[in-house]
């Protein structure tokens, strides 16, 4: 039994325990806390000098086609695993008081966590897909039952249908992918498929349309422009821990998938690179401007999260088998981690703010910095991290993505990739504008009259905030801790 089995199983055991009457919040906190510890242990035990997957374990489920429950992690999945356990633990810790159906609430969160962990650790693409589906159902419940806003049921439907459609397109792509590599026996085993692909498996033309299918399928799950309109309303309406887990962790599934499959479809990326560049600039500039126009903090954070996905896509788009080093994808992974942690902290804090102030409309807030200094400090750190300030993990990712875009540039005119990089750099200005505007409107300046007093972050709540901030800073100060784990 691999350590990964335990990590995936623990949240599910937690659900079971809650069903049999264990106190919901404590149990959830306990299992995610244990998972956090196990995640760190896995990181310590992981040997970066070894090629391929580690901690592998496998149990056959079906012979034809060959499906097995198989786990294993390489550097990429290890980083995603760490992201998942960190954010899961903090999301559950930061969950507000639950008035009704507490068991279902925490069980749902544990399901999301288990689904994400399972997807990241699976080396069998059937389970890779199925685990992600497992996490979708609870998201629907969370928004529909505990969400905020009049429209929450519609929002819950919208995200669920939207993502389900994305999943089905993805499924079609995955099946097409594996059927192209089925000579020598039909299998869903990722490692076998990787080998077959490396041996020249898929013809260029097939790579093209498989890649496109996967790009749209995964893209919908990551809110790739123009398939992003599910994201912002869902995050605005979902309870804070759900937004934290979904925007922070689950959404990274699509990007993780693209990073997994693109090396096996190099021709596919070449064929569709220009399309991808156009779409990701849609994410960065178009959604960036949409974010600027937001009047509510939750809408702003939701849209900013969509916008920042564009940079990860840029890292993937700059990938090229022919030129040099995997700078872009390495940056993409660091940025996925940084974004996941910082957006989780932002959503967590925004949730607290909504709880205590009753609104997230920025015009109605103001000058809170004096009143709740620690809260403001933490929010400021997360906002600056998200705006790509050096010292936080996000910057180390972004800067690599930009270098990736200019890899191989010799002094001639710009290629489309380089133009996209330049436009993406302007996006960095845009994100600074809306983040500083929001921070200024909510925390700085004079307080509006008739202001209701509110409480600062209580001692107990500082723990998860500190964990998130420290994660950002550690990887921000010394990103080699992660970049050395990655081999593409």
């Amino acid at each position, binding site marked *: 039994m691999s350590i990964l089995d335990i990590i995936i199983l623990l949240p599910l055991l937690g659900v079971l325990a809650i069903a049999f009457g264990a106190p919901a919040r404590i149990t959830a906190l306990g299992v995610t806390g244990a998972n956090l510890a196990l995640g760190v242990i896995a990181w310590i035990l992981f040997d970066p000098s070894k090629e391929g997957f580690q901690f592998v374990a496998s149990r056959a489920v079906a012979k034809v086609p060959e499906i097995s429950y198989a786990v294993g992690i390489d550097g990429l999945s290890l980083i995603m695993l760490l992201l998942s356990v960190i954010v899961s633990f903090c999301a559950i810790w930061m969950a507000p008081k639950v008035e009704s159906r507490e068991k279902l609430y925490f069980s749902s969160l544990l399901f999301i966590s288990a689904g994400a962990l399972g997807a990241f650790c699976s080396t069998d693409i059937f389970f890779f897909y199925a685990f992600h589906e497992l996490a979708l*159902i609870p998201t629907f419940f969370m928004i529909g039952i505990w969400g905020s806003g009049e429209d929450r049921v519609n929002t819950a439907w919208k995200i669920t249908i939207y993502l389900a459609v994305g999943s089905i397109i993805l499924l079609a792509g995955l099946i097409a992918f594996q*059927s192209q590599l089925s000579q020598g026996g039909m299998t869903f085993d990722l490692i076998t498929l990787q080998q077959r692909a490396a041996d020249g498996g898929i013809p260029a033309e097939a790579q093209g349309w498989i890649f496109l299918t996967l790009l749209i399928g995964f893209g919908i799950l990551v809110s790739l422009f123009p398939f992003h309109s599910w994201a912002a309303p869902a995050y605005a309406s979902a309870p804070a821990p759900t937004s934290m887990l979904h925007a922070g962790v689950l959404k990274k599934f699509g990007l993780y998938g693209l990073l997994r499959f693109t090396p096996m479809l190099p021709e596919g990326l070449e064929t569709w690179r220009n399309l991808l560049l156009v779409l990701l600039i849609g994410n960065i500039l178009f959604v960036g401007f949409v974010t600027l126009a937001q009047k509510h903090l939750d809408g702003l954070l939701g849209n900013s999260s969509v916008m920042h996905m564009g940079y990860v896509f840029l890292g993937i788009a700059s990938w090229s088998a022919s030129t040099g080093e995997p700078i872009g*994808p390495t940056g993409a992974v660091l940025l996925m981690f940084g974004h996941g942690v910082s957006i989780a902290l932002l959503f967590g804090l925004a949730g607290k703010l909504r709880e205590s102030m009753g609104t997230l409309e920025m015009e109605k807030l103001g000058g809170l910095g004096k009143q709740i200094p620690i809260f403001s400090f933490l929010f400021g750190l997360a906002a600056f991290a998200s705006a790509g300030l050096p010292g936080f993990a996000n910057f180390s990712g972004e800067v690599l993505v930009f270098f990736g875009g200019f890899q191989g540039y010799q*002094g001639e005119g710009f290629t489309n990739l380089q133009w996209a990089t330049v436009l993406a750099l302007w996006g960095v200005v845009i994100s600074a504008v809306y983040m500083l505007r929001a921070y200024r409107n909510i925390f700085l300046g004079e307080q509006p009259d008739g202001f209701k007093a509110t409480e600062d972050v209580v001692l107990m709540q500082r723990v998860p905030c500190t964990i998130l901030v420290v994660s950002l800073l550690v990887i921000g100060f010394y990103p080699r801790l992660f*970049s050395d784990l990655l081999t593409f």
Partner: protein
Amino acid sequence: MAWLLLILPLVTAAVTALVTRKNGSVSAYISVASVATTLVISVLMLLQGTKDGSSFTWIAAGDFKLNIGLTLDSLSRGMMLIVTFIGTLVHVFSLGYMKGDESKGRYFACLSLFMFSMTGIVLADNFAMMFIFWELVGVSSYLLIGHWFTRNAPVEAAKKAFLTNRIGDFGFMIGILMIWGMTGSIAFEEMKETASAAATAHSKMFGIAVLCLFCGAVGKSAMMPLHVWLPDAMEGPTPVSALIHAATMVAAGVFMLARVSFLLNLTEAAELIAWVGAITSLFAAVVATQQNDIKKVLAYSTLSQLGYMVMAAGLNSTDAAMFHLYTHAGFKALLFLGAGAVIYACHHEQDMWKMGGLSKKMPITFATFAIGTAALAAVPYVTSGFFSKEQILVAAYNGNKMMFFIAGLVAFLTPFYMMRMFTAVFFGKSRTKHAEHAKEVPGVMNVPLIILAAVSIVAGFPLLGKLVLGNHFAHADVPFEVLFVSVATMIVGGGLGFVLYRGKESEPLPIAFVRDKFYLDEIYIAIIRVFQDGVAYVSKALDHHVVDGITSRGSASTVNGLGSLFRRIQVGNLQAYAFLFGVGVILVVYLLVFA
């Protein structure tokens, strides 16, 4: 030992921010001790001529690496001395100036963060590291300008400073990426070897790349058209204005140009850089003549002098630019701290027409301020400003006659506006109660003034200049025309300023157009309204009506249809989901069997 220069202020910032935050005085003393130690280290390094640098890999992707590494050459050793020296004096001065401030701990923590960031820029041996600290300097400046964050004006100024700098950094990063592509490296030493080949192979793109790099300096050193943040930044505490917005951070742009002077030498685009500097220096000097807030006068004066330095750098005389940077750091810090003393004594009054007659009430401040004014006005032979401004004029004289004319005009305007302010503040009658009751500031604020006054006199002497900058500037080689212009403009400008403003109660020649900075701020605000906020508004509408309409409104109606269907047959949400899941499973089976 050089690493200590970086580590010490970082640790100090962390400790004062997290551990001793509540106890302002302890934080203050820790910070002062830390910065004084870095000064000692800088002096030792300068005397020993320490050369060795070391580096470690910060991030790696395959064989691509970004390093954090130090470079110690005469440029960085000299700059380090300037930064830590002014830094130490400003820290000490702040002990007095910020004594009663309730957030003293936060103030000193931010000062230490600034020292950390600035040190990083100075010691960086490659562009990536420089960019990292470049951004961090921007943040510390943001935090310090917005120190009094419960008032609206400082907060807006802080935001404006950060965002304006971000615009400059947009170009800076593009420049770094292009230069990296063309020279194959981001380390300064390695670039030196490949740069000239790249410049010949792609001279046009190389020029563009250098101009993009220069954008970074335009933001940080507040050149036109991105100058608008610096005058507003005066909302921050005055010692901060002295350290960051006069002596060190705003000089980082010039320092960067000096660091990459070997790139500037390779392209004709450098002339454009010189023009930006020249125009900025003239524009700012003109605006300075009509400002009434003493800090605003000094701010525009700083812009003008930075323009001088950038012009010299663009004319491939980075040595002259660095020389002026070095003397300017001393006397401009002196002027700002002197202004701070005046403001402190007048109960935070900053309008020069509400002062007057302070010469007798604050004799030490008066005397030191007089020396600072003389240095900025470039009084011949006895002030440091004279020797360095002369080098700037020589650069312009040899480079471009039109620029020499502009530089001469600025040399005339500088003593003019300084004498105007000096006369209004220190001479005549006290025009308000606050000025009437002004008293000399305490010793902890006076001592830094005296030290800086001494520096403003001796810094220009060849021996000291050579020690700090490693360069010898021979006054004897200066052409007669330059000497004549330098001395004549100083006498005429200063004299005119004194005669015109002596004994005046208010501005005798108000020119609203100049006082309001040619309405550039208003124009910018209008541009932002139309382009940024307008585009944002339209995008939001498009997003809602078109994008969402096409991609999901269709499915939304499907959802509603499905929803009501399920409601009619009395099944809940779970079944609906199961249905979708079922569709997926059927698809799997179908494809598995038939594909």
